[in-house]
């Protein structure tokens, strides 16, 4: 029986890890479909950003209550994973609580700490569920979350609650079995939380307790493997991607819009033809701006996978606040959805086969793009360094430069800038009239 459990465990973990690695590889390939962008300068600052923003969750604390609850869940998740290490080693070797003899009396303190964290995770997730489904915090119930995104969020929270409950049930049953001196159950001393609940199980026969303990153990670890494989399909993938995302964030001032050297050079060669390279092969025609996900930078695409749809960006967006269609969160969700679609297309056809769809128009509408004031509130708000504005800018460039898709008022403005050197229809000769007025006064 023991050997069967061991073999089963090794098979399940092997398959889980293989599937997870395969999916992560696919996501990595999807991200690399984006255009090149060098974001490796200043590694010192980058490590610091990763430590502060991803590990330290610095920006989360702009909203203290969700930040503290999130910290419980996050710390619980990371630290309780140490316990997973023991579970995995037990599973492979067929031992039970193999760290207990090594750590002595410290073992029960350690498990006690895990249990406290487990309770905090439980409480955090329960409150999060309430915020989404009962309190209906505005940014968590907006229309772009209808359907799968809402279910995804709830499923993750429920799954975490189940995992923590199983962990605590397993420990409680274990303690009762230890007290009874059941074979195979190493005596560890009582645990802080479950030690208080042994009374619940004391009336149960050994067999039932073993079933609860073993069932808890198995469901817990299988749940963890399921969770791991669910992650890459879920918004919850942020627990992994936010780390590289914080590392590779743009280190420029938020106000800076990325230059387009190809257009800079075109203007230069037009103004100073002698500077144009004569022998250079004609450059490969590249689309101006972005029409689809492949036209975006790889960092834009990683941003999409780092997004956990918390909506802090949208809650701060002046366009969204005043009822416009633009939602920076939706920009990120659309980018990921389209990229996933392109990825599935590649999986099926070996390479991308034109499907008649694009990120602009089919996912993100012109109306949304037109509503942006470039105020950078979304960039500032994101706890994991996502830059929705960067995508908006590139889609706008495509609309104007490739589709000549511009509101009439902007065409007038462009014409004025070009002809009168000001966005309004004033004569350039009038530019210093204020100064003449002052001189005459």
């Amino acid at each position, binding site marked *: 029986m023991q050997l069967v459990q061991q073999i089963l465990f090794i098979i399940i973990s092997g398959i889980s890890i293989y599937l997870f690695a395969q999916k992560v590889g696919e996501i990595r390939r999807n991200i690399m479909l984006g255009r090149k962008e060098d974001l490796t300068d200043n590694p010192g600052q980058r490590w610091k950003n990763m430590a502060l923003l991803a590990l330290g969750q610095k920006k989360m604390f702009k909203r203290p209550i969700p930040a503290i609850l999130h910290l419980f869940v996050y710390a619980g998740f990371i630290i309780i994973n140490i316990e997973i290490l023991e579970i995995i080693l037990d599973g492979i070797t067929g031992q039970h609580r193999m760290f207990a003899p090594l750590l002595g009396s410290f073992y029960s303190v350690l498990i006690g700490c895990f249990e406290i964290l487990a309770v905090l995770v439980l409480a955090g997730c329960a409150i999060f569920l309430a915020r989404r489904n009962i309190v209906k915090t505005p940014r968590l119930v907006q229309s772009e979350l209808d359907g799968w995104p809402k279910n995804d969020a709830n499923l993750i929270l429920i799954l975490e609650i189940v995992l923590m409950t199983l962990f605590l049930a397993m420990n409680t049953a274990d303690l009762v079995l230890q007290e009874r001196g059941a074979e195979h159950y190493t005596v560890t001393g009582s645990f802080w939380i479950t030690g208080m609940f042994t009374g619940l199980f004391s009336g149960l026969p050994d067999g039932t307790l073993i079933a609860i303990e073993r069932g808890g153990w198995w469901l817990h670890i299988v749940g963890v493997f399921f969770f791991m494989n669910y992650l890459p399909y879920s918004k919850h993938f942020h627990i992994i991607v936010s780390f590289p995302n914080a590392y590779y964030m743009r280190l420029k001032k938020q106000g800076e819009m990325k230059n387009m050297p190809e257009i800079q050079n075109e203007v230069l060669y037009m103004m100073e033809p002698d500077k144009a390279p004569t022998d250079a092969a004609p450059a490969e025609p590249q689309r101006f701006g972005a029409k689809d996900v492949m036209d975006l930078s790889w960092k834009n695409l990683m941003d999409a996978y780092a997004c956990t749809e918390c909506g802090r960006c949208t809650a701060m967006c002046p366009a969204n606040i005043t009822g416009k269609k633009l939602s920076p969160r939706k920009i990120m969700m659309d980018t990921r959805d389209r990229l996933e679609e392109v990825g599935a297309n590649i999986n099926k056809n070996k390479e991308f086969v034109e499907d008649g769809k694009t990120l602009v128009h089919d996912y993100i509408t012109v109306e949304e793009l037109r509503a942006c004031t470039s105020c950078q509130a979304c960039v500032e708000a994101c706890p994991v360094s996502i830059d929705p504005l960067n995508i908006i800018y590139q889609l706008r460039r495509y609309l104007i430069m490739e589709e000549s898709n511009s*509101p009439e*008022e902007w065409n007038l403005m462009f014409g004025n800038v*070009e002809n009168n050197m000001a966005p309004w229809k004033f004569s350039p000769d009038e530019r210093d009239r204020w100064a003449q007025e002052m001189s005459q006064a």
Partner: protein
Amino acid sequence: MTIKSMAEYAANGEMPEVLFWVGCAGSFDQRAQKITKAFAQILDKVGVKFAILGKEEMCTGDPARRAGNEFLFQMMAYNNIQTLNGYGIKKIVTACPHCFNIFKNEYPALGGNYEVIHHTTFLQQLINDGRVRLKESGEFKGKKITYHDSCYLGRGNNIYEAPREVLQALDVELVEMKRCRTNGLCCGAGGAQMFKEEEKGNTRINFERSEEALETGANIIAANCPFCTTMLTDGVKNKEKEDDVKVLDIAEMVARSLAD
């Protein structure tokens, strides 16, 4: 007073201390012209040797770039950089955060490298250096004033304190809006929105922001950007509060408080 152009300085073989980049709004918009004049008056009064480009100044290309028209932006930038580098300009002060941002962050990649300073920071330095001297009890002393962070000075370039320090020097009672500093709400003009109708929604962004400013109970909304000034003025008018509440640029407030 005479305001000299860069061409006049160059003709005399002289260099000003700083070039005052007026910007399109500051040059042509009637409301913004008052800000320009106020700032020029301060510079003149305290003896800062400054020049303007006059008719040689052109739009920086910012609204074109934000709208997506990179060609037009690059054309404008090319011409401006030719002019500025031709005169050997080292230092630029401007009363427009959009011009400030594009000079500071986006022209360097195109060969335009200057020390760029926003007029609120410049005023703060002039006050700290004792060059700008303010009246002991100016008209803003003790007045309830709220300050609107412009996006391109605030979030865009992390300048939150300099304008507030100028207000403190004026001895005002500064009341912050709920959304201020990094959380400041846009006036609605950025990203070339100034030049088009807003998209369909429940309300206008400038109405939303102006209401928030009015809720502070301040009599003056201090701004640092000609576009914000226009948007907020319209928002105040929408609430029919224009007789009680004024939107002023920080330069206008300083100009009115200069010691004799």
